[in-house]
């Protein structure tokens, strides 16, 4: 497997995951905003904080109202992490390695891109928005299904899986990080906040089935950080990466970085973090993930020229 191709595959999966996660997040948050009591303001800017794009947003927009924030996160080309931009990047990357994927996967990626370009254009009111974003999630899931169902467990598939898990772990930790910033009506209970965080990660149903019907802070924090069986938790993503790495040549330096991150994760205590220090802890996890990324880069991608377009899109 060419280093350049490995890196493109990794980024393609990250962009795809970013597009899907953002779509899920927006849909969950939109539903949440409908539960607001009359007169209460919903802080759409909290979505910008999740993406780490709040400052950048205000360079281009005056006010963080629903329609501006939605346009910025969904279709604005100025935002390199918008859903449209992520899908475009994913497609451009796919173009450079069509030969390592089943031939029809290009058609499906292309179809997703054509769907997004057509549907994400213009102002999306809430009803249409939900439908269109579901359409994106479904198409992206079909692509994952196609790849998993028709590809050998070769390095191409492994780099795709690593990219997907890296982006997921990143998104989960970001959402945890802004939990304190999500603006909720003062009369709302703590439970409502944590329930919505679970929903934003499509984790509510599984949490209820396997952990508790009550979404209390310490349990949700423990679940999202340390649960090994739900596919969007930080622990699950990291252990997946660790498992996948063993299928690649000489993964030791990267494995070491992953083990270190897992050790940090194991030391986390939801009860304590619920009281204080969650933000600092998430910061340290983010820096562990950066180390994993850098280890991957120097071990597998560094023989090639850096994909510069990809670099600018990592926030």
């Amino acid at each position: 497997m060419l280093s350049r191709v490995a890196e493109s595959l990794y980024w393609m999966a990250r962009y795809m995951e970013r597009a899907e996660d953002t779509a899920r997040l927006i849909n969950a948050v939109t539903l949440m905003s409908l539960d607001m009591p009359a007169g209460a303001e919903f802080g759409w800017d909290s979505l910008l904080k999740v993406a780490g794009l709040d400052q950048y947003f205000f360079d281009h927009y005056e006010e963080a109202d629903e329609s501006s924030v939605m346009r910025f996160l969904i279709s604005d080309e100025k935002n390199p992490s918008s859903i449209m931009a992520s899908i475009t990047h994913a497609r451009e990357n796919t173009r450079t390695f069509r030969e390592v994927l089943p031939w029809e996967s290009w058609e499906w990626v292309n179809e997703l891109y054509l769907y997004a370009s057509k549907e994400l254009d213009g102002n999306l009111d809430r009803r249409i928005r939900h439908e269109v974003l579901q359409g994106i999630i479904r198409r992206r899931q079909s692509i994952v299904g196609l790849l998993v169902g028709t590809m050998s467990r070769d390095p191409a598939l492994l780099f795709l899986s690593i990219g997907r898990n890296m982006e997921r772990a990143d998104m989960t930790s970001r959402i945890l990080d802004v939990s304190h910033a999500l603006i909720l009506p003062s009369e709302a209970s703590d439970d409502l906040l944590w329930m919505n965080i679970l929903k934003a990660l499509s984790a509510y149903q599984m949490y209820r089935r396997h952990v508790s019907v009550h979404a209390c802070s310490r349990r949700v924090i423990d679940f999202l950080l340390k649960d090994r069986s739900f596919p969007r938790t930080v622990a699950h993503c990291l252990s997946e990466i660790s498992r996948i790495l063993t299928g690649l040549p000489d993964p030791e330096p990267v494995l070491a970085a992953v083990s270190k991150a897992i050790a940090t994760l194991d030391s986390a205590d939801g009860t304590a973090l619920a009281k204080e220090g969650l933000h600092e802890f998430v910061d340290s996890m983010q820096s562990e993930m950066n180390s994993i990324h850098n280890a991957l880069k120097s071990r597998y991608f560094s023989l090639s020229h850096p994909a510069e377009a990809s670099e600018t899109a990592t926030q």
Partner: protein
Amino acid sequence: MKIDFENNWPKDIYDEMLDGDGNPRPIARALYDHLASVGDDTFSSRLAAVDTAILTAGITFTVYTDSGNIDRAWPFDVIPRVIDANEWRVVEKGLKQRLHALNLFITDIYNEQHIVRDGVFPIEVLKDSKNFRQACIGVRPRFGVWAHVCGTDLVRHSDGKFYVLEDNLRVPSGVSYMLENRQLMKRLFPEVFGRYRILPVDNYTAQLHDTLASLSPREGDRPVIAVLTPGIYNSAYFEHSYLAQQMGAELVEGMDLVVPEDDCVYMKTIDGLERVDVIYRRIDDDFLDPEVFRPDSCLGVPGLMRAWKAGNVGLANAPGSGVADDKVVYAYVPRMIEYYLGEKPILPNVPSYLCMIESEREYVLANLDKLVVKPANESGGYGMLIGPSSTKAEREMFRELILGNPRNYMAQPTLSLSTAPTFCEEGIASRHLDLRPFVLQSNKLHVTQGGLTRVALKKGSLVVNSSQGGGSKDTWIVEGEY
């Protein structure tokens, strides 16, 4: 859907589907009847399905002037062109004969030059040849083959015969569109396939793979083959990627390859450096190796020529093959066939006038309004003068170009390219077309069953090049009773 023969159908030109009286030729009858039986609505919905399929499949061809858009959809015409297998077998033989002779010529010209000494080929032709490569002198590639992949452009004249228009020996493209066109037809008009025995085309990629594999410098049954592409902005990137995928080869760019001190080619992989045995390069000679050719090229691989000359990597087509892909050298191909093979050429050339020869130049200059003037080394239909449709100013410009550099120009009579019914804005109308079969040579020779039929979508136009707005058709070689 009716094919309206009375509607300005040119009667002095060979039509692939209709005879001089407007009746379908025997071979095309089943297709004709089928088209006639399909209602206009059905036909429109099939056309819409074709467009969607092309867009989704991302079958694209980049046009360089179309700035910013690297995804111009491939223009595909849904009405296939039908050719009798008995006729095709003769063409196939002719194509093999031609490529065989061309490869003998290239070896000879870079080595002993017997053909020059025997007075058959004037060496002056090569004096200013852009594609004669000093670096190739004395090289003898395996099997004596330089051009492993050749795209030969054929046209059918009003006499119903095929003529060779040119031999593309550098990096001919289009074969992936031939393969995709067949896939599209099967998907969209499966019922027509039941009416004919159409020879399959999809063994091409396996034959290409075997041709390349035979050039491997190492023993073993799974040589490492790479397709070298200039990258996603190249007009034929779709094809590079397609062929790599179909052959299970690596698609590499220049920056992925390196030639260290040991004169072997390696690619940079997640496992470190991995040796490459054969490179199917889709980059022109000029850009192939900055150590030898253009030093400013960043598409190529420094040291590639060293590795090739040391016999450590197979290169297809071999550098320097373009010496025979020259519209002046072209005029000598029939003589080459007789000289090297002692055979009569099976496929005729189009009569050609070489501006380097004084008497022929005078004829050309006196008849600029009737002839097609072509520069010796351009491809893609660029830099041509089409006499009958030219302006006075254009003819004056070409007069000066020719006098300034007579070696670089040749002229041919304007051929009446054959036509075929084609779906256009005004319904089904006649459009001119040519045919590009692909020929492979290593220790064996293969010819595609048919090839890429390119069609000029503009009314009356003779320019079929994809880079100039041409389209394409599926080409059916039909066997047996019909």
